[in-house]
């Protein structure tokens, strides 16, 4: 009984947090589209909009997961738990791809900066 109450409390917090994270991801997607609009040219706008779809999708999955967890607390239907897990799993799957691309880009940037640093220090000698 006490364990169930604790589980419900944790799930309620998980639902609210994941819904908020979902909305924040969607806001990031929206801000990216706004940035594309601020640039004022059609080619970068299309590119940025294509990129912005990804965080919107990730956010939608987190939000749906949260909604199903909320429904699970109310109805106690095991199907809601499966659908919530499916949504979180898809959220993590897309995030995984984004993180792989992000890691490669950032590693290239760090290597470039290290190269610039070595060139700068050799020029100073």
């Amino acid at each position, binding site marked *: 009984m006490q364990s169930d109450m604790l589980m419900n409390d944790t799930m309620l917090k998980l639902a609210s947090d994941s819904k908020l994270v979902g909305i924040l991801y969607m806001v990031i997607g929206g801000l990216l589209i706004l940035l594309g609009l601020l640039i004022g040219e059609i080619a970068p706008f299309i590119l940025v909009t294509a990129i912005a779809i990804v965080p919107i999708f990730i956010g939608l999955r987190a939000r749906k997961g949260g909604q199903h967890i909320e429904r699970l607390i109310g109805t106690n239907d095991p199907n809601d738990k499966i659908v919530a897990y499916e949504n979180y*799993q898809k959220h993590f799957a897309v995030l*995984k791809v984004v993180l792989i691309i992000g890691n490669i880009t950032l590693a290239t940037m760090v290597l470039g900066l290290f190269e610039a640093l070595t060139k700068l220090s050799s020029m100073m000698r």
Partner: protein
Amino acid sequence: MENNFFEKSMTLLLGSNARVVGYLTIILGSLNVLLVLSIISVISKAPIPSNVMTLVVLLLLALLGTAILQIISGIKAKTTGEGFRDFLFTNDKMIEQISVGYLKNYFTITKILYIVNISFFVLIIIFLKTGLFKEMLVINPF
């Protein structure tokens, strides 16, 4: 029976994806820390005006803060994945409860991280639109 199989496969996928996301987020956070350190090394050797340096250092500190938060959220995602994997092996409801708790912690830290990121994003857009960056550079260049 079929429902149980579907639940187990979903839990397995959730666990493995969360674990990979955890490792990748830890790597991303560490790379961000490295990036900040290398930028500091580059700009400390370059002749930069003091007011520009203050702005750059503030931005770098913010980036360092978000990098540390990223590493923490990565650790939480990794623990979530490991928890769900353990639940599959043991079928213990208590372990599932603990894993859901870890997932909640992951989303809480991610929430803070994204609120900070969005605030900086909006600040930078406002600075760019109002030309505040230019003013800061023009008022006292040296």
